[in-house]
């Protein structure tokens, strides 16, 4: 299908402000009377506040006031607290002080005397699971079905797990399908491996600073979130106000990656503080604090057993995961990992068991491919190991297992909307010249050896049921109202192009409204889980269809005939039998205001979300309103799939590797925005390289202190850690459940990269797999020198 806007590059309306420095992120705002808040955070991993002496701090000149845990609603464990009297990790905010300037606030913080009683703590899930082990929270050590409880294994269970044997310890999460025993019986090769994937920080470039003030009974919040409209209900609830009394501005967000999906505690803090002080409050977050409150990836300690038939097809997978949740409740990662295995390898039988354990480390949450990407780092190199034993090419073993549109996923073995993984593998294999390149595998050049790898990534990539809102004003402008957050993918705008497509209008005549709830934005999905492209091309399509119907109806009422007699082109509606009977979109907009009712927004559909209802109320009478909830069918899980190919050179003397060449192929339906897709594939690749060999949390188990609270310690990849140039491509076959054929891609773009690099490293080492992320030079040197590794088999927090 040929489109006017879909599949074409364009200049996003916000990009010029990004390159000129005019873009205002939350910390760039200043308002009259603004005061500056600083946080006092916990110096210990778990403790109870016994006493706070503020006398000296509050007596300082320029200090305006203090906000403590007593001033904010208590949180239910393990939900994060805005401020707490029982800190559960080093860096947990205890109180905030506001002053006329930041220096004074910081000086005042240093004058506060907090008496803390130390409580037991843990930095490792397996440490907490042992008999009598410490629990991260007084309420327990595990978070199951949204409740805290206590689980301790026997010494024997723990030892078996730490020895890498089939786990026997209690695992409250369990699902399975198929006959596992028969699956292993049918296998020619059975792999059994234990593994560790280390958590690490999101490290968004923008620390999550927040400005808040109250005006005419409304709370104004300038924050940094991935989503826009989706934040409104959760932030209003955190602030204890009605949604209508919140004005939320997040026109720009300096990176989220899963850490800023909905509201978070720090986002609500200045709202409470500014109410208490009756002054606008700016809370600046430092890089170090961002490391504490900015979320991190869930760590895995696990065991996996997988059976492969002679042709390479996966017959059975038994997966067991202990999840390190950090100090707060999340925990979908293990199940998501299981889901990824179930779709990428289509096993005949599978079982997932998992136990989500809290530790006194930074709060964890979703991070780009939460679960899917950890397991990609483990399963894909293991797949290569099996292929090696079976004498099958790595690309071929992926082809024989690859999901197509009849693929099944998850415990319930439900359908997918469509999948073309074989096409992705074939396209990549051809573009990368896999067969020729594979011949270079193991080739020596001085101290360097070549490794070739292929990896796959998956994440569900689409939701439904959200709203679209478009408006034509009497000046003829087409306003595309987007409740989608501006997280850097440009999906806030690229998805509105589905509406422009339906309305057959020029892009130059469109105005994209976004980034501020006062601009009357519709209810939107969360900008996470790679869903926005699928979800909001649908919602925009639906709203534009509603508008198209109304345009034709207004033409029929005004010019005579039936609505079906009319069509649109060049921002005019015309009678198909007599093209002289026509109206411009501007005239239609003016007419809609006269007609009122559902045309002008005075009436609206019953099924739209209250956020959208308020938006329509705010716009009523200003033009022709097109508004609809997405009720299009979805016949299964919407898969986002990606394949990556990497060639590396590993220096056997230093253990360092260089990525010589990298290609990513997206299987995400129709390409909506080619440059944006390339951006996601490149960005995902960089994240994947970081996970594979650079990034990790390290906590001192003795004192619970983080060893890395900055960029130079956490090691996000730099220009010099990535290949000179990255190649990207896409399968570009339409998905039947999206009117534009599109699906999402952001997260699979990372998992495939992690996997490709780890597989290439393994290839360079003749098939050795480490079953651990990150794989660092010292691990490679120890392996090559036949020295023991510096870490115990399943240990976390290793340097």
């Amino acid at each position, binding site marked *: 299908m040929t489109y006017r806007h879909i599949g074409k*590059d364009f*200049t*996003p309306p*916000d*990009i*010029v402000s990004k*390159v*000129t*420095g005019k873009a205002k*992120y939350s*910390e*760039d705002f200043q308002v009259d009377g603004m005061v500056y808040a*600083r946080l006092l*955070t916990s*110096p*210990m991993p778990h403790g109870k506040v016994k006493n706070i002496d503020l006398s000296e701090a509050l007596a300082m000149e320029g200090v305006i006031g203090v906000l403590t845990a007593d001033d904010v609603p208590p949180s239910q464990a393990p939900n994060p607290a805005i401020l707490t009297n029982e800190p559960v990790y*080093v860096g947990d905010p205890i109180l905030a002080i506001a002053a006329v300037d*930041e*220096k004074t606030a*910081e*000086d005042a913080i*240093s004058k506060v005397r907090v008496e803390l009683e130390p409580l*037991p703590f*843990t930095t490792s899930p397996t440490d907490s699971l042992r008999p*009598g082990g*410490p629990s991260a929270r007084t309420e327990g050590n595990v978070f199951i079905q949204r409740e805290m409880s206590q689980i301790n294994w026997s010494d024997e269970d723990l030892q078996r797990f730490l020895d890498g044997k089939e786990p026997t310890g209690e695992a409250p999460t369990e699902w399975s399908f198929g006959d596992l025993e028969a699956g292993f019986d049918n296998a020619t090769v059975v792999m059994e491996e234990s593994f560790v994937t280390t958590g690490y920080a999101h490290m*968004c*470039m*923008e620390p999550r600073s927040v400005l808040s003030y109250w005006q005419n009974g409304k709370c104004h919040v300038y924050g940094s979130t991935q989503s826009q409209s989706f934040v409104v209900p959760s932030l209003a609830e955190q602030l204890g106000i009605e949604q209508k009394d919140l004005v939320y501005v997040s026109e*720009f*967000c*300096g*990176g989220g990656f899963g850490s800023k999906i909905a509201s978070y505690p720090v986002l609500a803090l200045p709202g409470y503080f500014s109410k208490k002080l009756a002054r606008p409050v700016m809370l600046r977050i430092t*890089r*170090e*604090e961002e490391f504490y409150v900015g979320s991190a990836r869930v760590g895995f300690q696990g065991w996996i057993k997988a059976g492969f038939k002679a042709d390479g097809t996966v017959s059975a997978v038994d997966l067991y995961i202990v999840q390190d949740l950090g100090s707060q409740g999340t925990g979908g990662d293990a199940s998501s990992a299981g889901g990824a295995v179930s779709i990428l390898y289509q096993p005949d039988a599978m079982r997932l068991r998992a136990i989500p354990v809290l530790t006194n480390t930074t709060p964890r949450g979703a991070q780009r491919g939460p679960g899917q990407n950890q397991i990609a780092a483990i399963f894909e190199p293991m797949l290569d190991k099996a292929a090696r034993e079976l004498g099958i090419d790595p690309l071929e073993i992926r082809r024989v297992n690859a999901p197509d549109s009849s693929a099944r996923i998850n415990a319930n073995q439900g359908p997918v909307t469509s999948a073309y993984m074989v096409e992705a593998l074939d396209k990549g294999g051809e573009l990368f010249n896999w067969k020729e390149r594979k011949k270079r595998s193991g080739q020596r050049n001085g101290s360097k050896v070549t490794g070739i790898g292929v990896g796959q990534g998956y994440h569900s990539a689409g939701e439904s049921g959200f709203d679209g809102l478009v408006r034509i004003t009497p000046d003829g402008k087409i306003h595309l109202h987007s409740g989608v957050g501006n*997280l*850097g*993918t440009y999906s806030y705008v690229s998805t509105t192009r589905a509406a422009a497509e339906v309305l057959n209008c020029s892009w130059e005549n469109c105005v994209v409204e976004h980034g501020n709830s006062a601009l009357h934005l519709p209810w939107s999905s969360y900008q996470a889980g790679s869903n926005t492209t699928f979800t909001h091309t649908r919602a925009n399509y639906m709203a534009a269809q509603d508008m198209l119907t109304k345009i034709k109806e207004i033409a029929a009422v005004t010019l005579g005939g039936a609505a079906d007699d009319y069509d649109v082109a060049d921002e005019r509606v015309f009678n198909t039998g007599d093209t002289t009977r026509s109206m411009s979109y501007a005239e239609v907009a003016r007419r809609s205001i006269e007609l009122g009712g559902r045309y002008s927004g005075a009436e609206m559909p019953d099924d739209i979300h209250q956020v959208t209802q308020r938006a329509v109320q705010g716009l009523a009478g200003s033009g022709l309103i097109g508004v609809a909830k997405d009720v299009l069918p979805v016949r299964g899980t919407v898969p986002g799939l990606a394949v990556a190919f990497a060639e590396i050179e590993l220096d056997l003397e230093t253990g360092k590797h260089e990525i010589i060449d990298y290609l990513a192929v997206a299987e995400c339906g129709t390409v909506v925005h080619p*440059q944006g897709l*390339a*951006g996601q594939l*490149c*960005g*995902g690749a*960089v*994240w994947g390289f970081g996970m594979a060999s650079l990034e990790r949390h390290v906590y001192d188990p*003795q*004192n619970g*202190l983080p060893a890395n609270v*900055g*960029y*130079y310690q956490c090691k*996000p990849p*730099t*220009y*010099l850690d990535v290949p*000179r*140039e*990255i190649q990207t491509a896409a399968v570009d076959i339409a998905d039947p459940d999206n009117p534009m054929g599109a699906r999402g891609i952001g997260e699979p773009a990372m998992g495939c990269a992690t996997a490709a690099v780890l597989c290439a490293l393994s290839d360079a080492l003749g098939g050795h797999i480490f079953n651990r992320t990150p794989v660092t030079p010292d691990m490679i040197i120890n392996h090559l020198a036949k020295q023991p590794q510096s870490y115990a088999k399943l240990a976390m927090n290793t340097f």
Partner: protein
Amino acid sequence: MNARLSRRRFIKGVIASSVAAASTSAWYSAAQSDRPQGSVERLLTINVNGKKRRVDVLPQETLAHTLRYKLGLTGTKLGCNRGECGACTVLVDDMTHYSCSMLTHSVRGREVTTVEGVQAPNGDLHPVQQAFVDELGPQCGYCTPGQVMAAVALLKANPKPTRDEARIAMSGNLCRCGAYDHYLHAIMRASGQRT
């Protein structure tokens, strides 16, 4: 309590942790109680984007602080405030500097250029900025002003860099979105080596 953790060890840990906490936030600690007693702001004239700006500056004040909070030039971003990320990159006499790690007093008599100062007087984007737009360089955009300034400085010194030279020149600027490739494309485009 954790059996492996004696009370003495724990107290030692807590002492260590408060020291660690106090020594990390660089700008704040620079502005803290260790500053010279009786320090006061002094009125300076500094040259920013071709204009003389008079501003009251503390002895220990960083250039990033002066630019952002006293001169309203918020295009210069603070990603880390401790010389790790490059988001605050500005030019001083056409050389890149992390403005978070430079004292405002040290730029007296020198030419400071921020991202607000690279557009042409008629408002046209600088070729680097235009190339960043054309290549869809920025993702979240937070590191972008620093990347623009590093690229502008590179092309002043080396108008036709190789991609490898550009990588090295840009390597002091982190991008968590991983837009490195697109930024490099943009540099090659701005230098007339890519169409």
